[in-house]
Structures are given as structure tokens and as C-alpha cells.
């Protein structure tokens, strides 16, 4: 089973040179730590920042420079600042090549639920609905099962949806899967995890074709 950092590391292998990328809160944020050599990507933060850099050195925090998680950040050379409508013009207009975000549930047709649990305090969707409805390329980073051991890769989402038929790929602690018209296509297994284990942890339709290789790091 992968840990959070390994999930991020595997997702980072998907990055292509010259891409603009929006990373959600949680595991997705860690992707920035594993950019492959020779690949240059720019990070977009939906609160109005392109070319986001690492956290500032202690004592150099700027209250006027934060990311979408409200954390103090820095800017890279060649970055830019803009207002919220321009930020979502980029997102909605599909100028950002990749969005990585977490999820509570993903269905085998690409639906995603990640903002609301009935009966619990609802904090809001933030920019997630715009991101999933707009991006051409959405990768979900999450654990394969929830704390009760139940699958998060479902035939149909049980929680209120964030977006419909939008997720393209899921990277979990157990597997890499594409969303296809016929369900989750199993592409890679986490080191030491068997196809049978993945099958058992996947409630949605799972397509297994030929030998499924282990992930390479």
C-alpha cells in the first residue's frame, strides 16, 4: 500500500513539461514535491496566483500572498497575480491542463463527491465544482477505501455530487485506474498489492485486462 507521499509521487509521473496545474488541498498539494527532472510545470492557485512557489522561509511570510488553502506561499519568477474572475476564466476556459484533487467517493462513470456529508457541518464547495466541471484532465488522489474499510470507488456515488462524468484517472494507495465508458480500468498495482485485493476493495465495475504491472518509482 502506498502512503500519502507515494500517491503524490505516482501522480507526479503524469505531469508533462509546460503544463499548468491546479493542486487541491491534502495529498494533491504533495505532488509539488515530486516533479520529475526535466519537467517544468506552473502551479495555479484559484485565489489568484500563477507560478506558486514553496512555503516562505520563516520570518518571510507575507499576509498578502497566500494559496487557496490560505497558507502563506511564495511566487516563482514569471508568476502573475489576478482577480478571482480571471482565475476561474483560466479554469473554466480550460487553460489549466491538469487538476488534482481529493475525493470521498468516485463512481465508475467519473462522478465525484468531495464536498458534503449529509448531517455533518457543510463547509462549502469552494472552487471544486468549477474545477471538476471545467478541466479536461482530472486526477483524483485518495485512499481506496474509507476508515470503515468500504470502497470509495463505486458504481454510483452515495454522497452529494461535486461533478458528473468528469474524473479521468484515480490514483489510490492500491492502484492507478482510468475511467472508461465501461468502468474503472486497472492500469497499475501498488507494489505488493494483488489484483484480487484491488478487486475486493473496488465496488464499481473494474476492468482487468492482461497482466497488470506494478507501479514504478
Amino acid at each position, binding site marked *: 500500500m502506498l502512503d500519502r507521499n507515494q500517491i503524490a509521487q505516482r501522480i507526479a509521473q503524469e505531469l508533462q513539461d509546460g503544463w499548468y496545474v491546479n493542486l487541491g488541498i491534502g495529498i494533491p498539494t504533495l505532488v509539488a514535491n515530486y516533479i520529475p527532472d526535466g519537467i517544468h510545470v506552473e502551479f495555479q*492557485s484559484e485565489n489568484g496566483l500563477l507560478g506558486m512557489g514553496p512555503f516562505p522561509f520563516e520570518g518571510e511570510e507575507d499576509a498578502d500572498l497566500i494559496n487557496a488553502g490560505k497558507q502563506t506561499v511564495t511566487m516563482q519568477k514569471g508568476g502573475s*497575480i489576478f482577480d478571482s474572475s480571471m482565475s476561474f476564466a483560466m479554469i473554466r476556459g480550460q487553460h489549466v491542463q491538469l487538476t488534482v484533487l481529493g475525493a470521498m467517493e468516485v463512481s465508475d462513470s467519473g462522478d465525484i463527491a468531495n464536498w458534503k456529508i449529509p448531517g455533518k457541518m457543510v463547509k462549502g464547495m469552494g472552487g471544486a465544482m468549477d474545477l471538476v466541471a471545467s478541466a479536461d484532465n482530472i486526477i483524483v488522489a485518495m485512499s481506496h477505501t474509507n476508515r470503515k474499510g468500504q470502497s470509495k470507488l463505486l458504481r454510483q456515488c452515495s454522497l452529494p455530487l461535486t461533478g458528473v462524468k468528469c474524473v479521468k484517472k484515480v490514483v489510490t494507495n492500491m492502484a492507478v485506474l482510468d475511467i472508461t465508458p465501461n468502468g474503472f480500468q486497472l492500469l497499475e498495482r501498488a507494489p505488493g498489492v494483488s489484483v484480487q485485493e484491488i478487486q475486493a476493495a473496488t465496488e464499481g465495475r473494474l476492468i482487468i485486462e492482461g497482466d497488470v504491472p506494478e507501479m514504478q518509482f
Partner: protein
Amino acid sequence: MNKLVKDAKEGLAGVKDGMTLMLGGFGLCGIPENCISALVEEGVKDLTCISNNAGVDDFGIGLMLQKRQVKKMISSYVGENDEFERQMLSGELEVDLIPQGSLAERCRAGGAGIPAFFTPAGYGTEVAIGKEVRYFDGKPHILESALHADYALVKAWKGDRYGNIIFKGTARNFNPVMAMAGKITVVEVEEIVEPGELDPNFIHIPGVFVQRIFQGKGYEKRIEQRTTRPKA
């Protein structure tokens, strides 16, 4: 052309119970601190507040929530606030949650005379309930309407008495679109400059959108999530 007022109190003259306000800011970054303090002091209530977030318990809009001044919040994300949660769960506070991009675009539309537009965000979710759905290029979209406010409370970096303003860093966020959408737009700045000092090529929001402007004071600029790395 002199839109300069003395302070937040003068800037907010005319704000009444039951009005709709827009408040700029993302989290605690770029919020109109002086205007919020003045609203709390004046005690105006039953407000509908349009703001991406609702502050924290003891800062930002949280201060207005503590005094029960807010009837309804229109936001995209409202975590990090216990009193907010209490009022919402008890039904004292009405909450309308809107996707962040739709919120920004609806404010801009309000300022730009666009009464409604189609967006893909929220299709197939509860956000779309009761909204018109239409397909463009085979992709479903929902119709969203413009937002307006009686007053827009905006925090900028520098401005002049014509109302021309510029912002700094990510403190820009929702401030420009809200400046466009207010019937009366009140701007607080860190520094008032002389007309002509701001390069006309690089004014973020032209004065035509601004009715009142003043130099704020005592900015706390609280940081919500102080994240750093050690010096190498």
C-alpha cells in the same frame, strides 16, 4: 472629482438594516478590516453578506456573526468558524453556498450589466436544482444570474481621490469584481496617493466603479495558516 471620505464610518453612511453587502477577501487575506469594524460598531443588522468566506471566530466577518448582524451568507466556503456553525445548524443563519468561480463571475456580471450567463460548474449537483440546463457543444451548462449589492466593501492597496485603485498580491481576489458590482462601492486603502501617481496603464479598477474611498488604519492582516520552511 473627490470621492475621499474621512473614515469607514463616513464611507458606510447610509448602510441600513436588511441591506445586501459584498465584502472582498479570500479567507482573511484582503478583507476590508476597517469597514467590518465600523459595521460592528454601528450595529446594523439583518444583513445579507456576499463574501467568499465568513472569516474566523474572532476576526473578519466572524466579528459580525458574534453580534448576530448577519441574516444570510452567500459564500463558497465557510469553514473555520464555530459561531458560524452554531448559527447555521440552529437555523439562525441562512447560508447560500455557491461554487467559487460562479460567485466571482456572478459578481462581475452584476457590475458589467450581464444579467445571466451559462456555466458548466455545478451541473448535476444540488447547486443546479431549479436552474435552467442547456447544452452547448454537447456539454451541459446551468444558467446563473448576476449578483448585486447595496454596498460593496473593498480593500485595496493604494488609491486616489478619483477612486482609481490597485491591489497587492493575492489580497486582490474578489475585491475587483465586487468593486464593479456595488451600487455604492466603498474602498479602504493602505495609502491614498495623488491623482496621476498611479500609472494609468496599470490601474486595476478605474474610479468609475468607486463612489467612496478612504485611507484605512491599524491593519492587522492576520494570517490564517502560517506555513514556512526552515532556512537552509
